[in-house]
């Protein structure tokens, strides 16, 4: 078998179309700002402001839009064409598109569902009408589904499938003896002869398992400490703010190097930190139920009991690796990475929550609740927090992206996760030595990180615009 080409049988038609669209886009992108600027200079006074951009600017603007659509159409044609042509005519792109079919199916289904119930979904429904938000949502959902279906998508095992003769091979290289397995390394082989494509897909699972969960924990810590700091103020606020600023003043990279060295791990510092940080969700939920259902003791007891039993079980397993049933546990490397990411993020969340609380506590409904005789924790958790949800939601999305970047940074320096772990940062680290000669092993995970973070940032941007509009 010979090496696959990128585009397969579709290439001769689609590549020129793509090139034409790209050239048109570049020309329009250059011409449009110039036309706009020229239009501004010509306008002397308020009339120009009302009449809007001139004819030249309208023309280049239209061209810009048209070439963008053409580019999108050409790319979509690659995907759909790649899916539809017979297997022997498929190029690398077509084969990748085919491997990803569960993702396309679920993406289509979920977007169809959202579009169908758009009216009833509130903010999520509005997002579809916002181009940036919709693209962001699509990118994020793409990686979520890729992580979910990683086992079906990846043709090889990301860690154990080391195939002789495939070391540092370029994309589309056929296996020397493809018996009973997939015939090609679609995006080439890495320095240990593993499949780059499979590792990138499996890496999505690692990253998406850690980043959102770590962000959630950071939010629990930040909210539990930020609400009383902002609402009660005084010495508590002074102390907590000083501590938060202390952690924030550390350059992130220094903190990582200090927390994730083998000596520190040997002293058990990450475990103690996990012991402290993982308590916060428990505290948060307990206070939440207690303040809300104080007047209904049976319900309160049931909720708090359930929280403590379930949470305590998870806590023992995750933080101390002491689950009595041996079900819940966290690998040591993952725990270290998780804890350091939570620790870095929690102070910024604290500052945001504190600032929002300081703003909201002067509102009338807070005064009304105080007059009603509600306790401070009820006011903080059930009056202030729900009204701070908009900015917090936006920050949550942004922060998942930032956490992904932090995870990549840790991996890039080989801190925390095991060296054979398929996560993107570790893969970049493994491939960067030979980057100039074998670019694909680090390039693929790099593009993966970028697209996921871009998706998160676009989603956050869309959410911010839509929530401002409401």
């Amino acid at each position, binding site marked *: 078998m010979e090496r696959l080409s990128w585009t397969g049988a579709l290439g001769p038609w689609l590549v020129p179309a793509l090139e034409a669209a790209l050239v048109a886009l570049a020309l329009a992108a250059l011409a449009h700002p110039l036309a706009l600027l020229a239009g501004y200079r010509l306008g002397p006074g308020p009339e120009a402001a009302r009449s809007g951009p001139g004819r030249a600017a309208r023309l280049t603007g239209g061209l810009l839009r048209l070439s963008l659509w053409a580019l999108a159409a050409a790319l979509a044609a690659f995907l759909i064409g790649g899916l539809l042509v017979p297997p022997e005519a498929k190029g690398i792109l077509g084969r990748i598109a085919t491997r990803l079919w569960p993702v396309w199916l679920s993406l289509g289904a979920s977007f169809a569902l959202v579009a169908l119930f758009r009216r009833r979904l509130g903010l999520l429904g509005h997002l579809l009408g916002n181009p940036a938000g919709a693209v962001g949502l699509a990118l994020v959902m793409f990686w979520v589904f890729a992580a979910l279906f990683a086992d079906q998508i990846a043709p090889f095992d990301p860690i154990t499938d080391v195939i002789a003769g495939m070391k540092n091979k370029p994309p589309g290289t056929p296996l020397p003896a493809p018996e009973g397995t997939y015939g090609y390394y679609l995006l080439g082989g890495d320095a240990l002869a593993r499949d780059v494509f499979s590792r990138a897909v499996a890496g999505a699972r690692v990253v998406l398992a850690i980043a959102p969960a770590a962000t959630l924990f950071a939010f629990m810590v930040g909210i539990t400490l930020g609400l009383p700091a902002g609402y009660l103020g005084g010495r508590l606020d002074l102390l907590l703010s000083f501590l938060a600023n202390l952690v924030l003043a550390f350059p992130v990279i220094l903190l990582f190097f200090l*927390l994730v*060295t083998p000596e520190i791990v040997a002293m058990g510092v990450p475990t103690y930190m996990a012991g402290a940080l993982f308590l916060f969700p428990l505290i948060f939920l307990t206070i939440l139920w207690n303040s809300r259902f104080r007047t209904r003791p049976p319900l309160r007891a049931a909720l708090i009991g359930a929280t403590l039993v379930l949470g305590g079980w998870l806590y023992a397993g995750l933080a101390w690796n002491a689950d009595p049933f041996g079900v819940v546990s966290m690998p040591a490397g993952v725990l270290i990475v998780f804890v350091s990411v939570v620790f870095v993020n929690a102070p910024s969340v604290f500052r945001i929550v504190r600032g929002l609380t300081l703003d909201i506590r002067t509102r009338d409904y807070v005064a009304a609740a105080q007059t009603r005789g509600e306790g401070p924790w009820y006011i903080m958790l059930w009056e202030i927090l729900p009204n701070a949800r908009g900015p917090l939601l936006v920050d949550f999305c942004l922060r998942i992206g930032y956490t992904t970047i932090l995870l990549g940074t840790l991996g890039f320096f080989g801190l925390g996760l095991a060296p054979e772990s398929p996560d993107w940062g570790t893969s970049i680290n493994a491939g960067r030595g030979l980057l100039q*000669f074998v670019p694909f092993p680090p390039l693929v995970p*790099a593009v993966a990180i970028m697209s996921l973070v871009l998706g998160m940032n676009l989603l956050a941007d869309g959410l911010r615009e839509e929530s401002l509009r409401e």
Partner: protein
Amino acid sequence: MAGFIIRRLGVMALTALCMTFIVFLLTNLQPNLEKLAKTQAGARITDAEVASWIDRNGYGAPMLTRYGEWLGVLPAPLATDADGRAVGGRCLRGHPGLAADEVPRFCGVLQGDWGYSTKFRRPVTEVIAERLQRTGLLMAWAFATMVPLALIVGVLAGMREGSALDRGLSTLSIATTSTPEYVSGVIFVALFASSMVGLKWFTGSAKSAVEGATFQNFTLPVATVALYGMGYIARMTRASMAEVMTAQYIRTARLKGLSFRAVVLRHALRNALIAPFTVIMLQFPWLLTGVVIVEALFVYPGFGDALVQGAQNNDIDLLLAVSVVAVIVVLATQLLSDIGYALLNPRIRVA
């Protein structure tokens, strides 16, 4: 203003003390010291020898005492043998062979003695000075490209909120903030320095930039550092510009018949640049992470590389010195940005 600065300086000093103590604590834990003893005195020494090495070289005292000695506010004890010759102690590190009475009693950071790097086998001050120079060059170029570009992009995007130009530039800014240095660096090298694309315009390593930075070997590192921070500054500038453009005095200027250009350049720009100033100052600590990544990726032996080497080789004095410098830079930029903001913005009165 003076009171404000003095109060800020006080908080800063307290923060610096706390931070350096934390770093000291984390780098001087027992496993670190044992590893250090083994790398310095031989890997096969017994546990008793390790303990005596630690005691003799002044690592045996309680943590707080050692921190005071490192700071230079407590005298460091000197270990002598039966003949009264100095054999070890904090002040003897890096100067072997000094007679016992020549060894200073205090030798901490305050006395200018930053210790001895076990990795580079030179005094830490020399290593740090040399590397700060190199990183300073990188940072200066990165700032010189990043700040003007970001301000232009932000002002252009923010002067007409919601226009096509705004949308395009804002998306561009979001894209750059989503591209951390290790991603953009890898993409740049793959595009412009690898045999895959074959452009080979630049070199993929900045090692030769130590002898002299040229366009060829320094462009990619500078571009990589600048790109990630650019989007953030541009977004802040855009937000600030968009807010200024809705202000009453801008409308007044338009109504009195000034051209859009004159309004933007003469009236809006100055006020719109106050907020980004703070952001630009606060980019320094962010840039440190970027610098560490870029120096690792492009093999440039600067300050960031010293951090990595210090951490990976258990070089306690070097890592401490790097941390002190980093902490001081962070705190100083915070102070400067506060003062600058108060000075630039006439609405803020500091008592």
